[in-house]
């Protein structure tokens, strides 16, 4: 049972520059299913649309970004709800109780002029009534923080008094205070030093085990994916080009782009020549026809220049969008 499904999801940045209109196709017809109780990783280079995909499924769509087509289904109490139809006031109740959001490591996500405890209270009271301050709010909050190994002094301090790693862990505690079903994390470890990054990854793993929910983790760092995710989806030019279990992606990548991505990762103790993906990433405002990777793909065929390969299951629980693999599969 998928906890979150998208069908032909399209969301573009509509930019009016002077006279003509420019459409940046950040999410380009994506159909994907994310299971319950798993850590689903989304990998891809900068400018491949992964952050936009996150914003769209969380309905954090602000102009110039606009959801142009397709639908998003949440599995709320067993039945699918098409979130695109739900009105904002109604959807507001779902926020943080059903789906919450962890920002990038470098972002100051907490209100700078109120104490951390005050921020927790704002998020808490937005969804849960507090009649007895101590029992309904303070006790569960203290328990939640100690479960995540955070010192209590964090509550009394202001965001600017915390170190980068500490602030990020506090934001994670905030995102998990109401025990949501889905936690969406957008590059949670960038801009953190490597030790703080490891602590954050550990924290996310513990939370997932503790609350049995689903974490959707977006990062460009394949090594982070290797360490934490159960399944990975590779995004390229606004589309999912491959999706499989983590071990499968690293051992037997099918799509040429994924192959290059895995091959180009430097490893300790291995000084052999590491190739780099030829050419330059496509601009999302004028995509090449057919498969967007075809200008850089060494195995390019005629069909690749004309049609866009669908994301098709070629092996068990291993989808890829490339005529090379699906053609063989077809034969």
């Amino acid at each position: 049972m998928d906890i979150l499904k998208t069908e032909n999801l399209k969301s573009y940045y509509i930019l009016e520059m002077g006279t003509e209109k420019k459409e940046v196709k950040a999410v380009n017809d994506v159909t994907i299913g994310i299971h319950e109780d798993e850590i689903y990783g989304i990998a891809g280079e900068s400018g491949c649309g992964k952050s936009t995909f996150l914003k769209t499924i969380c309905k954090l769509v602000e102009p110039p970004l606009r959801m142009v087509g397709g639908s998003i289904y949440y599995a709320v109490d067993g039945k699918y709800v098409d979130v695109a139809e739900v009105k904002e006031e109604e959807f507001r109740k779902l926020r943080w109780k059903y789906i919450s959001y962890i920002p990038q490591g470098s972002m100051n996500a907490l209100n700078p002029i109120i104490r951390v405890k005050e921020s927790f209270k704002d998020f808490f009271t937005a969804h849960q009534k507090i009649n007895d301050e101590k029992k309904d709010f303070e006790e569960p909050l203290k328990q939640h923080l100690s479960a995540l190994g955070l010192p209590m002094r964090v509550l009394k301090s202001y965001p600017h008094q915390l170190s980068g790693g500490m602030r990020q862990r506090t934001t994670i505690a905030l995102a998990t205070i109401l025990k949501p079903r889905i936690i969406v994390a957008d590059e949670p470890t960038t801009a953190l030093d490597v030790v703080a990054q490891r602590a954050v990854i550990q924290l996310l793993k513990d939370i997932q085990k503790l609350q049995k929910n689903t974490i959707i983790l977006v990062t460009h760092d394949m090594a982070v994916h290797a360490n934490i995710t159960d399944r990975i989806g590779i995004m390229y030019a606004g589309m999912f080009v491959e999706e499989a279990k983590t071990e499968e992606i690293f051992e037997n990548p099918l799509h040429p782009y994924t192959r290059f991505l895995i091959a180009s990762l430097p490893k300790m103790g291995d000084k052999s020549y590491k190739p780099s993906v030829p050419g330059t990433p496509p601009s999302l405002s004028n995509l090449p026809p057919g498969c967007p990777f075809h200008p850089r793909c060494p195995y390019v065929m005629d069909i690749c220049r004309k049609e866009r390969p669908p994301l098709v299951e070629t092996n068990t629980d291993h989808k890829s969008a490339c005529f090379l693999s699906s053609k063989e599969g077809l034969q």
Partner: protein
Amino acid sequence: MESFKELMKDGRFKFAFIVICVLAFMSLLSFFSPYNPLKWNVVPRDLPPRWPHIFGTTSQGQDLFWQSTFAIRNSLTIALIASSISRVIAIIVGLVAGYRGGRTDTILMSINDSFVVMPLLPILILIASVMRGNLTMVALGLILSLFGWAWDARVIRSQVLSLREREFTYTAILSGTKTFNLVIKEYFPFIIPIIFSTIINNMIWAIGMEVTLAILGLTNIEVPTIGTMIHWAVNYQSMLLGYWWWILTPVVISIFLFVALYLLSSSLSEYLDPRTRIQRIGEARG
């Protein structure tokens, strides 16, 4: 020219541009004025606005239309003197404080801040009352320029401070450019938009100050400027006696001038803001 067409699409710029053209044309007309602005009783007195005196005439027997052409020209000259000189001071102070940093920066900025915080009007009144009548247009322009640079020096300094830390400063040094032409080549494209928008804001301030001092009778009230016109209108109790056109002409002209300059400055600073210019460059060939 292409950028001009784009600017014209912005309503504020279009209105401002038209009004300024009209005022500039009027100030040019002053060279062909049939009457000598300093002479009185050249036309019948107190005529309401009717052809040939389209703005009417004053109790001093001067034609208001030709008088206002001189007024606009003189006010604009004073404003240009004041704002151009104060730009030079602002750039020097801003660049030196921003680029050298350290002790020079703290000293320069503390003096600069005292000019920002200080109430300038009483001081200008003091200066003007000391110089009494012989406050000519150029002298007034110079005095206003001495007090009009503080706010913008701070703006330029913060821009230079941020530019100094950016990596292309080091790339320029490593490309062999010396400090002086590094500032010209690298920093000026960022500073020029600031100079442009602050020149106009400073002109507004300067004209406002000139009007205020003239009304207090502290400047050379023979020379027709927007301020002196109002001064005579108020002194001759033009409102009480019902010569409404005498007081309304300078007031309306000044409002048009101030609003037009303000809209020009805000639309220009938006257009010239480096961030939007970069997008436009990218988009032009994107």
